[in-house]
């Protein structure tokens, strides 16, 4: 009986698995210097960026793929990937009527308010399909405030000085294997600049969509919040259902100046593979925020329900005095999904604070790990950290693991870490049953309550979506 419910709750269908039939322009498979030159040329990039790409590529060639994570990653053939794929359309759509209707249909299907008529939802959206940013909405309204919100390629063209100043300043190409790969072949992404003293009036968001087969997506996001500014940014991701595995290796860099704040929310729902673990996206992302100024603040919120393998650690470098880093995460793994995710909080400035809440839910045959680092450097007087990592196990074939690292080099630091692992309490289910709530609903309730602390941190529109996603991901899997 109980088994059935677990099965039911964990076997929901992936509803974004369709493929858009659209003409796609791709370049030959494989990776070499010529490919990089082609990508760069297609995007009409300046020489300095091409040089940087080539440098990154040459560095990448000297690296080996790391294997330290608690993940079982099949061999990836980097020569068997298309590094650039773009929906074919006329150059740079000026308004919606020029965007391919198939594309709009796609994004509508995903429920993304690309159409201006959905103005009421009040969100500026940048939509990225495969390697190209399709359309950014509300650009003009934002420009009045001096906010720059555009695709990365446009930023390179229109604001080269800004891009050049910050590009790679938080995640240099030498950082790790996937950062080097991304720096060599990155395609598109979002670029945001919030000028001094501006509070961005609406949520900015990007939807990433992988459409073409056998392609990898390598987007690059750069957000800069100048002094006293604030922005809330959301990203969402989906991909079609395919038997093969596709690679997604992005870099996200955030720079926060004095008294500024960035709130970065992710609802990651790449295709997780089927019930037998076939197919799905490999989500290997480097996300890092630099709290450069005093009193700056970063808040990462992520709801991870998709991807065959998730491997990422959104981190905060708390360099400014009194800067604050937050990390709220719900990671759900089901069937044969694997996740090794967490955060790094590097305290450098004085009186820096960080707060980590991580909620892992594993079901089916999945493996879900939290890996986090809290580092208090010698100069970080008065640093404070509190981390809480809870794991919930639904089913006896899955695993939940916690690997926190605490490196403390300062006597005034207070660092606390707490973790628990358990399954849903039978008493709780019984209590709900008694009050006429079915097993399935009871589990839904309990899981939602368990993740509430994190979901509450999401902007409202996303919170609703995340809650739905959570129940779909776990559909048919109560334990």
């Amino acid at each position, binding site marked *: 009986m109980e088994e059935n419910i677990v099965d039911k709750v964990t076997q929901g269908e992936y509803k974004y698995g369709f493929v858009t039939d659209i003409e796609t322009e791709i370049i030959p498979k494989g990776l070499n210097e010529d490919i990089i030159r082609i990508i760069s040329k297609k995007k009409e990039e300046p020489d300095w960026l091409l040089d940087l790409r080539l440098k990154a590529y040459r560095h990448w060639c000297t690296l080996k793929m790391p294997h*330290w994570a*608690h993940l079982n990653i099949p061999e990836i053939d980097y020569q068997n990937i298309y590094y650039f794929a773009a929906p074919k359309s006329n150059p740079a759509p000026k308004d919606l009527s020029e965007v391919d209707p198939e594309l709009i249909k796609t994004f509508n299907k995903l429920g993304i308010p690309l159409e201006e008529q959905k103005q009421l939802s009040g969100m500026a959206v940048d939509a990225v399909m495969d390697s190209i940013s399709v359309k950014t909405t509300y650009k003009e309204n934002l420009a009045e405030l001096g906010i720059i919100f555009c695709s990365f390629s446009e930023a390179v063209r229109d604001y080269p000085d800004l891009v050049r100043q910050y590009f790679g300043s938080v995640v240099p190409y030498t950082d790790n294997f996937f950062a080097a790969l991304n720096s060599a072949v990155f395609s598109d992404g979002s670029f945001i600049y919030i000028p001094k003293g501006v509070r961005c009036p609406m949520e900015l968001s990007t939807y990433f969509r992988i459409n073409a087969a056998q392609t990898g997506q390598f987007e690059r996001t750069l957000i800069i919040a100048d002094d006293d500014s604030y922005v809330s940014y959301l990203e969402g991701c989906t991909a079609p259902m395919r038997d093969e595995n596709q690679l997604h290796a992005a870099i996200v860099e955030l720079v926060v100046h004095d008294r500024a704040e960035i709130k970065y929310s992710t609802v990651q729902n790449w295709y997780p593979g089927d019930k037998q673990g076939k197919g799905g996206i490999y989500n290997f992302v480097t996300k890092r925020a630099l709290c450069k100024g005093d009193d700056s603040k970063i808040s990462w919120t992520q709801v991870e329900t998709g991807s065959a393998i998730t491997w990422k650690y959104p981190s905060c470098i708390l360099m400014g005095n009194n800067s604050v880093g937050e990390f709220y995460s719900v990671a759900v793994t089901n069937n044969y999904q694997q996740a090794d995710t967490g955060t790094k909080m590097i305290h450098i400035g004085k009186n820096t604070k960080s707060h980590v809440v991580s909620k892992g839910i594993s079901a089916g045959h999945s493996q879900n790990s939290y890996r986090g680092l809290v580092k208090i450097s*010698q100069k970080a007087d008065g640093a404070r950290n509190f981390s809480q990592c809870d*794991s919930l*196990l*639904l*089913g*006896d*074939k*899955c*695993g*939940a*693991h*916690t*690997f*926190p*690292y*605490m*490196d*403390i*080099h*300062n*006597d*005034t*630091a*207070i*660092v*606390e*870490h*707490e*973790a*628990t*692992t*358990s*399954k849903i309490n039978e008493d709780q289910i019984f209590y709900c049953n008694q009050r006429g709530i079915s097993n399935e609903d009871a589990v839904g309730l309990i899981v939602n309550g368990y993740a509430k602390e994190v979901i509450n941190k999401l902007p409202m529109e996303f919170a609703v979506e995340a809650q739905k996603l959570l129940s779909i991901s776990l559909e048919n899997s109560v*334990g």
Partner: protein
Amino acid sequence: MEIEQSYIKIYKDFGQLIKDNSAEVMNRERDKAFARFEELGFPTTKLEDYKHTDIRSRYAIDFGMNIRRVEFPINPYSVFKCDVPGINSHLFFIVNDSFYHDPQGDTTNKEIEDLISQGVLIGSLKEHAEKQPDLVAKYYGKAANVQNDGSVAFNAAFAQDGFFLYVPKNVVIEKPIQLINVMRATTDTMANSRNLIVLEEGAKAKFLVCAHTMDACNFLSNRVTEVFVGKNASYEHYKLENTSYNMTNIGSLYVEQSEGSNVLVNEMTLHNGFTRNNICINLNGEHAEALLCGMAIGDKEELIDNTTAINHNVSHCHSKELYKYVLNDKATGVFAGRILVKQDAQKTEAYQSNKNLCATKDAHVYSKPQLEIYADDVKCSHGATTGQIDDNALFYMRSRGISEREARMLLMLAFTNDVIENISVEALKNRIHLLVEKRFRGELSKCAGCIICKE
């Protein structure tokens, strides 16, 4: 591999001599262990488990090894006054790497004879391996992780002697058995020794190991202890380290627990140079219970690394782990604790806690509590904190006329108290209370190079 090369050469040149001066049972796997050591080398900081503890460089000193088993001309029974007054124990010594036979010593007294008549085997591992090869072979090397740890492989290749204890079915040894590892030499010396402890069904024993240094030379000891605890047996293991700053102490403890057994491990490091404790407890039978605790007080540039693993291999087992560190000056504390719950180990309860007190800016703590869980019906948690003495508590005491120094000490004592409270041997508990207090007053480190005249 230069550091390893010199030892490889020693083994190649003197391998036969090592074997001639050990027992046949201990020699069986020796060449294999050596081959494994040749492959692995000493652990480097590139390995996750040794990330903050560079034990390889500690082997770089040109240590002497006593391969020919030359007897050292001291009688520890007369020189060494046990520093746990009032403790009533069976006392044994390992001087450097050899079991010490004292004609007038404990091995011949009446109580021991009494135990021997009940079937207890106690004394030198080498001798018992010669007398009871089948019994020793059944257990020797069965728990130690020779395959993955270069340091343990090194020990298996070079250890020639050690301590052996066998407690037959339902025999209870009331008095604690105390084994003192003394380092005594005039030149830099390395000691590799091996302890084997076997408790049959329903047996009971308490074992106290003390590590001491008596000279100011550079010492390195690499000791591997294997413990097999039978069904419903009960075993307590205390380790007290009080060594000098020039000492490198690498201790590996492997405990295999059967159904319904109960084990307490308590490792206390009061004063040391460079210490690495590997502790691995395997819960192999249902309803087994393990309590693992430890405490470390470090100052100067001391390093204390406790790397522990508790493996829940079957269902219905309980484990609890508690480690506390107090660090001063430029001391480094490393704690890595892993709890592994295998897929079918349902109804497991495992709790782990690590608390650290940092008193200076240059003291470093690396804490790595880990949970790896493959079963769903479990209750597991871990917690780790690092901080300093609570200012409010300090203020409270000072406002009541207690000097700051005294108040600090009281709070630090209270902090370490939960670990000390887990000692069931009353005399030892009182003694450790006193030693910890002395340690915090700085009296212990003053003459840390010499332990003899401590009283």
